C-alpha cells in the first residue's frame, strides 16, 4: 500500500479544536497536558492506569451517530490515540464564570475531597457517569469509581456525593456544551492518521490498509487501547520504533452476530463487548464488572487481552473454556486457529511476523451447556487474578458429556486442563463430590499444572484454588445456578442479612 499522508493529531479539548504534531507518538496525553499545555489539574498518581488520578473523559461517535462518554487514564494513553475524539479534563468541567458543575458541587457539598489529589480523577469519572445519564444507584457508582483510588476519605462521602446527583437537572450551559460537542464529532469522521516524525503512529481507516501497514512495518508495535503497551513506555521505559493502531477502523469496532457465534473484531473494547455479550454469558457479565476498571475497559480491547498472551489475562481462560476461535490475518489472507493452539509459551504465541489478531469468534452457549468463570484476586475490583478458572460443561441427564476447562495463573500460559477434563467425563453432577472424586481431581490437576509462587499467590494456594473453583463450578452446575462465583452467592446472602440488620443502624 502507499504510505498514508502525514497529518497532525486533531481533537476537541474542552470544547476547543486542537491540533498537535508530536515528534514522538509515545508522549502520553497526561504528559502533554501537564508539560506542554501547563494544564496541571490532571494528576499522575501511578503512571500505570491503576489509580485514576489522571482520568479524562473521552467522547466518541460510532458509525450510527451515537455518542458515548467514557473515562480513560491519560497516563497510559498516547496522544495520537485521541485523534478524532473530544477530550474533557478537570479544567473543562465548570460552567461560565467558574460556576461549579453539578458533579463538582456535589463533591464540595458532601465533603468528597480531603487532600484533593485524587479528586480531579473522581470528578471526571463522575462526569462520565453524568454524560452517560447514569441512574446513580450504589452498585453502578461503585463500578464507575472502581478505577479511582482515594486514600483519605474511605469513599463514603464520594459515594454520597454521587448518590445526590440522581435528583439534579443539567444546567442549560452544560446541555449547550454537550450539543456543541456532538456537532463537532458529527462533522469529523475518522480519517487515516499518520503522525510522529521521530516515532511514527499509523492508524488506517480500512481493514485492508491496516493489514498491509502491519505487514509493511513488522518492526512497529500493533496497538489498540494501550492499557498494557502504555506501561512498556511509562514503566519499562522502552522505545518502540513506531505504532500501528487498529482503532481507526470503524468496521473493527463492532461485534457481529451470526446464528451460532459472536465475532469480536480487534477494535472492540471491553466496555463494548460487555454491553453486547452480558446477556448471553452471565459469568462474563460478572467478570467484566470487575475486569480492570471503567477506564481500562473503555480503552482496552478484547483482542488485545488475548493477543498479548498474558498468563493471567482474564478473558483467555474464559475463551478457552468457551472454545473460541481466533482469526489471524496477514495482508489479505486469514487463517483460523482454535484458541488453545495460540499460546505456545511464556509471552510467545502462534502469530507470525506481519500477522495480527483480527477477530475472536465465540460460540453461543447451547442449551445443554453450563458455563462458569471464577476469579480470585487480592482485591475484588481492578486486580490481576491469582487464579482464574473457567468451565464449560455439556451435560446429558446430569452426566458430563463434554467439558472444557481454562485456567489462568496456573502456568506460563493460559491453558486447558486436559487430564482434569478427562477425569470428569462421565461424572454425574447430581452425585455428591466424594473423597474419591476429590482425590482424582487433585491428582489430575497436579498432572495438568505446576504453578509457581509469586507476588499474587503461593503455589499451594493456587493448587487449592484450582480445585475449589472447579468444585464450585460442579456444585453450581448441579444446582443449575446461573453463576458460581462468590459475588452471586454472596449478593443473595447479603441482601437478606442486611435486611435483617436494618433498623439496627440509622
Amino acid at each position, binding site marked *: 500500500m502507499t504510505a498514508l499522508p502525514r497529518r497532525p493529531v486533531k481533537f476537541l479539548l474542552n470544547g476547543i479544536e486542537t491540533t498537535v504534531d508530536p515528534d514522538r507518538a509515545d508522549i502520553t496525553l497526561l504528559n502533554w497536558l*501537564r508539560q506542554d499545555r*501547563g*494544564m496541571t*489539574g490532571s494528576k*499522575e*498518581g*501511578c*503512571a*500505570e492506569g*491503576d*489509580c485514576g488520578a489522571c482520568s479524562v473523559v473521552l467522547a466518541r461517535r460510532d458509525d450510527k451517530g451515537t455518542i458515548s462518554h467514557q473515562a480513560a487514564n491519560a497516563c497510559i494513553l498516547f496522544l495520537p490515540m485521541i485523534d478524532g475524539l473530544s477530550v474533557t*479534563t478537570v*479544567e473543562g468541567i*465548570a460552567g461560565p464564570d467558574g460556576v*461549579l458543575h453539578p458533579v*463538582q458541587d456535589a*463533591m*464540595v*457539598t458532601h*465533603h468528597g475531597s*480531603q*487532600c*484533593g*489529589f485524587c*479528586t*480531579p480523577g473522581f470528578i471526571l469519572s463522575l462526569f462520565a457517569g453524568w454524560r452517560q445519564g447514569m441512574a446513580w444507584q450504589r452498585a453502578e457508582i*461503585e463500578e464507575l*469509581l472502581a478505577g479511582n*483510588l*482515594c*486514600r*483519605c*476519605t*474511605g*469513599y*463514603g462521602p464520594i459515594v454520597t456525593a454521587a448518590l445526590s446527583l440522581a435528583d439534579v437537572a443539567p444546567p442549560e450551559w452544560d446541555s449547550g456544551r454537550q450539543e456543541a460537542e456532538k456537532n463537532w464529532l458529527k462533522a469529523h469522521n475518522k480519517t487515516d492518521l499518520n503522525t510522529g516524525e521521530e516515532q511514527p503512529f499509523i492508524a488506517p481507516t480500512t481493514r485492508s490498509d491496516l493489514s498491509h501497514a502491519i505487514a509493511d512495518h513488522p518492526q512497529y508495535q500493533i496497538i489498540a487501547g494501550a492499557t498494557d503497551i502504555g506501561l512498556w513506555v511509562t*514503566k519499562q521505559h522502552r522505545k518502540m520504533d513506531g505504532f500501528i493502531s487498529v482503532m481507526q477502523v470503524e468496521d473493527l469496532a463492532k461485534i457481529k452476530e451470526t446464528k451460532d457465534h459472536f465475532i469480536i473484531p480487534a477494535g472492540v473494547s471491553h466496555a463494548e463487548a460487555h454491553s453486547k455479550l452480558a446477556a448471553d454469558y452471565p459469568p462474563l457479565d460478572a467478570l467484566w464488572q470487575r475486569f480492570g476498571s471503567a477506564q481500562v475497559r473503555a480503552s482496552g480491547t478484547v483482542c488485545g487481552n488475548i493477543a498479548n498472551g498474558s498468563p493471567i489475562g482474564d478473558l483467555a481462560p474464559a475463551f478457552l473454556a468457551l472454545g473460541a476461535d481466533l482469526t489471524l490475518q496477514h495482508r489479505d489472507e486469514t487463517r483460523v486457529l482454535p484458541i488453545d493452539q495460540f499460546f505456545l509459551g511464556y509471552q510467545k504465541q502462534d502469530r507470525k511476523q506481519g500477522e495480527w489478531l483480527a477477530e475472536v469468534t465465540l460460540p453461543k452457549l447451547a442449551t445443554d451447556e453450563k458455563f462458569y468463570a471464577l476469579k*480470585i484476586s*487480592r*482485591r*475484588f*475490583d481492578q486486580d*490481576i487474578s*491469582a487464579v482464574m478458572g473457567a468451565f464449560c460443561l455439556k451435560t446429558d441427564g446430569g452426566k458430563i458429556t463434554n467439558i472444557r476447562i481454562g485456567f489462568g495463573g496456573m502456568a506460563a500460559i493460559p491453558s486447558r486442563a486436559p487430564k482434569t477434563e478427562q477425569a470428569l467425563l462421565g461424572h454425574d453432577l447430581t452425585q455428591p463430590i466424594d473423597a474419591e472424586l476429590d482425590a482424582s481431581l487433585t491428582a489430575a490437576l497436579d498432572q495438568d499444572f505446576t504453578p509457581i509462587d*509469586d507476588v*499474587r499467590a503461593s503455589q499451594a*494456594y493456587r493448587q*487449592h*484454588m484450582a480445585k*475449589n473453583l472447579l468444585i464450585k463450578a460442579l456444585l453450581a452446575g448441579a444446582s443449575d445456578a446461573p453463576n458460581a462465583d*462468590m459475588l452471586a*452467592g*454472596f449478593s443473595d446472602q*447479603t441482601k437478606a*442479612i*442486611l435486611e*435483617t*440488620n436494618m433498623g*439496627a*443502624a440509622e
Partner: protein
Amino acid sequence: MTDHTTPISTSIPHDSAVLHVTGGARYVDDLPMPKNGLVIVPGLSTVASGVITSLDLDDVRASDGIVAVLTAKDIPGVNDVSPVFGDDPMLTEREISYHGQIIYAVVAESVTAARDAMVKAKIEINEIPAILTIDDALSKDNLLAKPWQIASGDAANAIAQAPRQVKGVIYVGGQEHFYLEGQAALAIPEEQGQISIHVSSQHPTEIQHKVAEVLGVANHLVQVEVRRMGGGFGGKESQGNHPACLTALAAHITGRPVKMVYDRDDDMKITGKRHDIRIDYHAGFDDDGKILGVEFDQALRCGMSFDLSKAVAERAVMHADNAYSIPHMKITSRLCKTNTPSNTAFRGFGGPQGMMGIERVIDHIAHDLKVDPLTIRQKNFYPDHSSPIHGKTPYGQVVNDSIINDLTNRLVVDSDYHRRRQAIQDYNATSSYFRRGIALTPVKFGISFNKTMLNQAGALVHVYTDGSVMLNHGGTEMGQGLFTKIKQITASAFGLSPRHIRTTPTHTGKVPNTSATAASSGTDLNGMAAWRAAVTIRDRMAEHLGHLYQLPPEDIIFADDHVHMKDEKITFAEAANLCWQGRVSLSSTGYYATPDIHWDPEKGQGQPFYYYAYGAAVTEVMVDLMTGESRLLQVDILHDAGASINPAIDLGQIEGGYIQGMGWLTMEELVYGDDGHLLTHAPSTYKIPACSDRPLRSSIKLYPSTGNLSATIGKSKAVGEPPFMLGMSAFFALSDAIGYNQDRYPSLDAPATAERLYMTAYRQRGNNALD
C-alpha cells in the same frame, strides 16, 4: 467574651474544596517550572546489602541532556537526611543497606533524558548476605538498640498464678502510605546563597535544618514553603528530607531551579513504611475472663536505620494496654535492623501495632473460654472518668478521662450487637461455604508527642486595615482539614465568618522552629497558638475601642463580622481601621506549649499524654471458606472527637481512618523477594481498598460528648490517628468467622488476605477446609 474552651462547631467545607474539584489546587509538581529548570532522577541500588567496589558514571554524565550527576563526593556539608540519628546517607558512598537505596542522582533537562542516560551507569557491588525479616534479625540479634522494657507489677508471677493462660504469636504486616501524591520538592537558588524550597512535607522546619546541614550553611539561608500535600499519613514526616536535600544540592551546584518528583515505583522502593511487627504474648486470666497479667515481646522491622523507629516502638509499647486496665504487664520492645527501607511514621505511629497484641490476647481468651470476646473486653476496660476509681497504665499515667464503657454500651445498642451476634450463630450453624463473623474493638489513643519537647507550636496573625485577616501557623495541610479548622478558630476569636480569613502556606520564614504536623496534634497545638495570636490582637483592639467609646474592654464584643459597643456597632473593617489610626499593632504571634505532661524515657514512666481519644467500631464480615475471599457487610462506629470543631471533617477522618486501618489488616500486603526487592511497588500489585471494599452498610457517628475534659481548643479532641485503629474490628470479625465452632484457635496473622484466611482455616481444620 468567648474563651478558648467555647465550642466552635460548624461543618464548613474544606478550605480548598473548590480548588480540588476544579483542578486549581496546586501541588509541588504543578507549580510553574521556573526558567532553566532541571529535574532529578535517582539511581537506586538493585541489591539489598553490599559494598560498592566501583562506580563509573562517566557515560551517564556524557549523555544528552545531562547537566550533572551527583554522588556523595559532591556534598559540601553532612551526607545525611535522617530526622534524628544521623544514619541515613543522602547518597550512599560505600555501604549498600537496602534494595532501592539512592546511590547517585542524575540532574537533567528532562526525566526522559535522565532515564535514557541511567542505563549507562556501571556499578559494581560486592554483595553481602542480607538480613530481611524480623525473624532473621532476631535470630542474628541484629538490633538497632538494646531491648527496651516497661513493667508494672509482676507479670510473670501473675500469669503463673492465674487459673488459665493463653500463649501465642501474631505477625502483623507493614503498610505502604500510598499518599496519592509522591514525594516532591522544588529548590530555587536565590541571591546571597539563599535557597527556597517548595516541598510536600509534614515537617518544613526539619527540611530547613537538613538542607542547611547538607549544604553546610546556616538555617536562615534556607526558606521552606508547604502549601499542601496530596496525602501524608506520616509518610511525609521525615521522608521528604531526601528529595528536598537532593534538589537543594543540585540547585546549589548548577545554580538553576531543580525539581524532583519520585515516580510511584521509586517512591515505594525508596521510602519507609509502617513497621511490621511480631508480637509474642503470654497472658493469665481467671475463669470469668478477667485478665490478671500479660507479657508482650514486640519485635518491629525497622529497616536499615533508625529514622523514627525508636519513638514508634515507644508508642507501640505505650498502647499495648489499649483500653484495658491490666494489673500486671511487662512489655519488651526490640528494634530489628534489616536490609529493607527504613520504616517510618504512619498514622498511629506504632500505636496500632501495640494494640493488635492485646486485642489478639482477648480474642484468644474468648476462644479459650468459649464466650463472646465483647464480654472479655467489657470486663477489662479502664473505668470511666465518672467512676470513683481509675486505672493506671503500665507507664504510670492515671486514666481519668475514660468514656470507653459508656461509649461501648451505646454502640452495642446502636448496632443491635447482641441480636446480630445470635443471627450470625444461627447462620453459621447451617451454612456450608460461607461464614459470618462480628467483632467490636475499642480504641484508647494517647494524644501528645511522646517526646515532651515537641509539644509546642506558633502562629502569626495579621489584621489588615480593610478587616481582612491573614493567618499563618506551623501546621501543614495534608488533606486532614487543619487549615479549615484553624481558620474557624481564628474567625471565632474575631467574631468573623471564616471567609474573612486567608490562610497562607506554611513557611519557615513566618513561624520558625515548628514541630512536624503529626501525632494528631495539628489542631490542638496550632489551633491554640492561632487562637492566642488572634486574641492578643483582639484584646488590643478592645482596649483601644473601649478607650474611644468610653467602655471597659470587656464590654466590647466581637461578633457577626462586627464589633459591638453596647448599643452601637461598627464593622470589623471599620474597627481595624480605627485601631490602625490609633497606632495599635494589628499583628501578633501566638505560642502554645501543652501543659501538664512529662515523660522519663529511661524509667518508662510519666504522664506523656495530655488526654486520650476514644472510639469503638463493630464490623460484620462474611468469608467464603472455599477461597478465603471476604467482604465487609456492615460497620457501626462511635468515635469521640470531644466538642468537634468541624463535624464533617471529623467524620471524614473517622471513615477514612477506618478504611485505611481495615486495608492494613486485610488486603494490603508488602511482598519482598528473597533478594530484598520490594515486589509490590505499584498499585498493580499493592492493593489499597477501592470503593467497593467499603462495608455494604456504614453508620458512623460522633460520640455525644460534652467536650474534652482537658482544656483544649474549643474542648475538641484530636482525630487524625485514633480512628485508624477502628479497622481492627474488621480483622477480628474475620478471625471470628473462621474460628466459628472450631476447637483450635485460628491464630490469624495480618493482613488477612484471601490466601491467608483460606490457609489459616485449612490448617485449623486439620487440613479440611470444609469440615
